[in-house]
């Protein structure tokens, strides 16, 4: 047993969505391995979708994640429409963007206020934070509620909306119902800008990474759905090339597959920092002003500052929702009819936490023959491990509990959704000569 190797075992990572653990192994004072261990039980969506009617896919894949069901529904319908060669109308596309605005607002404000902000103020929860910052947390909850209200009007409900179908929507929303939201949305643009300035003043660790930032890059708008990706390393590729450029591979320590660049196994970062960098010029003026005046230089490569990027995207989502609703009139058709046919289609959309890719093969009877789903947390998982590896050396002089705490905070900055790919992160830090301690997931403490 050498003196410079040691073991830490800490509890549960919290304030993330899903269940996972972190295992760190040290040798001679160096970080040897960092394993983000996702033990969220597998649910086999890609398997049981086979043979189902393609119409079931948006409702079923929504159940992969209760926080971002709209993302699953949107990637699903766009991919299936590509397989069936359905062209949707501009009106349907606008309503889909509006639905996505609701989800970004709901998911980002939840993460900013209840999950992430507590880290910067030594609080265990958003409820505890509310005692220190009652006005700010109340404001966050009101913003979140407006996002949920938008989802309810357009989707029927905020968790697992019921109005999305292949070809469009089951029913177009009544203009009056949406227009009634305008005063709240106008308040939201201003309040979200205030919230962003509030979080921009938090104390951020000085930690800058050379990320390969990847996001969808539409020609003339901030991305929800597009057919082209761009990377901060200067490359671009189409959604049809996605699986050629990126691959999913399996590691023994995780029930989530990890995505990486096929050519060199390099990690990439998806999500708000990537989207803002690659689509800055498409931000609404209100969002752009906040981005320019919040004291952060773009591109931002400090993962801790992703909370500010989320705030900017909340401003963006409110402004975009206002634009769409102000122009909205009841469309002639809520959905495009189609006949089943055999085909393959793929699509990617921007879930709040990063890009979500779906590919489906359908048969001539309209049944799913094959489904491939690559969720955002899979995309970011390898990057999270690499960031931890880079971040850990500066922590090693701290107490064990503090090291775990700092690692959890770094993981939380990605807003990982481990149900899509975790909740409990158990943290073990292992020295080279100690037996590997397997994670003991989520036992209730006794």
């Amino acid at each position, binding site marked *: 047993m050498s003196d410079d190797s040691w073991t830490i075992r800490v509890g549960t990572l919290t304030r993330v969505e899903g269940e996972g653990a972190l295992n760190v192994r040290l040798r001679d004072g160096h970080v040897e391995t960092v394993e983000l261990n996702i033990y969220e039980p597998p649910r*086999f969506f890609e*398997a*049981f979708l086979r043979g189902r009617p393609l119409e079931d896919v948006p409702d079923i894949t929504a159940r992969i994640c209760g926080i971002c069901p709209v993302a699953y529904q949107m990637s699903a319908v766009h991919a299936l429409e590509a397989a069936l060669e359905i062209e949707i109308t501009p009106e349907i596309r606008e309503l889909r963007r509006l639905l996505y605005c609701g989800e970004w607002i709901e998911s980002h404000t939840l993460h900013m206020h209840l999950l992430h902000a507590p880290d910067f103020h030594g609080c265990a929860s958003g409820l*505890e934070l509310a005692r220190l910052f009652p006005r700010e947390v109340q404001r966050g909850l009101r913003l979140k509620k407006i996002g949920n209200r938008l989802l309810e009007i357009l989707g029927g409900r905020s968790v*697992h909306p019921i109005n999305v179908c292949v070809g469009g929507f089951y*029913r177009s929303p009544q203009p009056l119902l949406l227009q009634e939201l305008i005063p709240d949305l106008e308040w939201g643009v201003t309040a979200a800008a205030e919230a962003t300035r509030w979080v921009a003043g938090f104390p951020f660790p000085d930690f800058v990474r050379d990320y390969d930032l990847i996001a969808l890059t539409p020609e003339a708008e901030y991305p929800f759905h597009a057919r082209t990706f761009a990377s901060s390393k200067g490359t671009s590729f189409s959604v049809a090339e996605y699986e050629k450029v990126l691959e999913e591979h*399996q590691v023994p320590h995780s029930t989530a597959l990890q995505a990486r660049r096929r050519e060199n196994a390099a990690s990439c970062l998806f999500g708000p920092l990537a989207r803002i960098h690659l689509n800055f010029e498409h931000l609404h003026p209100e969002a752009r002003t906040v981005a320019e005046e919040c004291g952060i230089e773009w591109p931002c490569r400090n993962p801790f500052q992703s909370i500010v990027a989320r705030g900017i995207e909340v401003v963006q989502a409110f402004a975009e929702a206002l634009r769409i609703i102000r122009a909205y009139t009841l469309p002639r058709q809520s959905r495009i009819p189609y006949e089943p046919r055999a085909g393959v289609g793929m699509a990617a959309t921007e879930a709040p936490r990063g890009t979500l890719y779906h590919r489906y093969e359908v048969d001539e009877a309209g049944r799913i023959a094959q489904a491939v789903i690559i969720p955002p947390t899979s995309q970011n998982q390898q990057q999270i491990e690499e960031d931890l590896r880079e971040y850990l050396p500066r922590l090693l002089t701290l107490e064990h509990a503090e090291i775990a705490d700092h690692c959890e905070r770094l993981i939380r900055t990605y807003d990982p959704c481990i*149900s899509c790919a975790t*909740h409990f992160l158990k943290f073990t830090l292992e020295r080279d000569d100690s037996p590997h301690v397997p994670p003991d997931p*989520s036992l209730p403490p006794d």
Partner: protein
Amino acid sequence: MSQKLRLAVFKFASCDGCQLSLLNAEDELLALAEQVEIAHFAEASSLLGAGPFDIALVEGSITTAHDAERIQQVRQSAKTLITIGACATSGGIQALRNWGDHEEFLRIVYPRPEYIESLATSTPISAHVPVDFELQGCPVNTGQLVGILADVLHQRQIRVPNHSVCRTCKLQGVVCVAVARGVPCLGPITQAGCGALCPRFDRGCYGCFGPVVQANAESLTDWLVQREHQSPAVLVPLLRNFNAQAPAFQASGDRLAAGEMNRGDMP
């Protein structure tokens, strides 16, 4: 009440949507936190308190050997155990594996199936431990969730309306999508609580709140086949989704899939 009730939230195989429904009670959340001690709620707080708990809300189904042990400990730690949502109450969408080949499912999803620990079945919490109340829905209704917490808080009997979606439609004056347009709809056999959302949005109910008590699924499916000329190819997947394993839905779906139904004996 001198001491606050201690609330815990536990997750098993699920999507997090039902616990999110609690965080979605934006108007009630801070008030609720005044009334109860949120002692263990990993999605919302880093302070993971130890039991015993007065109320445990359980989301998700049992799909691993480890979780089958963990639910026993949750039960022992909780005075009142309430399941929230379709996964915890009927096994959820992941119970579709019960009709498939688990080994094949592993191979379809994972290049190295040997790394994965998973049971061949997804089972509801009640298959493992006694449950005090089951709140149905995929996802649960936030108002009902806050309501049952208030019931426990005020020591009332927990109750939610136990009528069908069909009746909600009638109460709301929604035109019947099944009768008027021949759309297959599970409203007559599905537990209310969603506010008849799907019929209000011009689509048939797909049963995400699970079967209502005394659901006569056989009669409904016979009617849909004989009178509306719906095929089992449409109705079996409709019954086999988020509550596929709930007994009423399962029996009816299996009967249709096996081609057993009463043909032609309807007026």
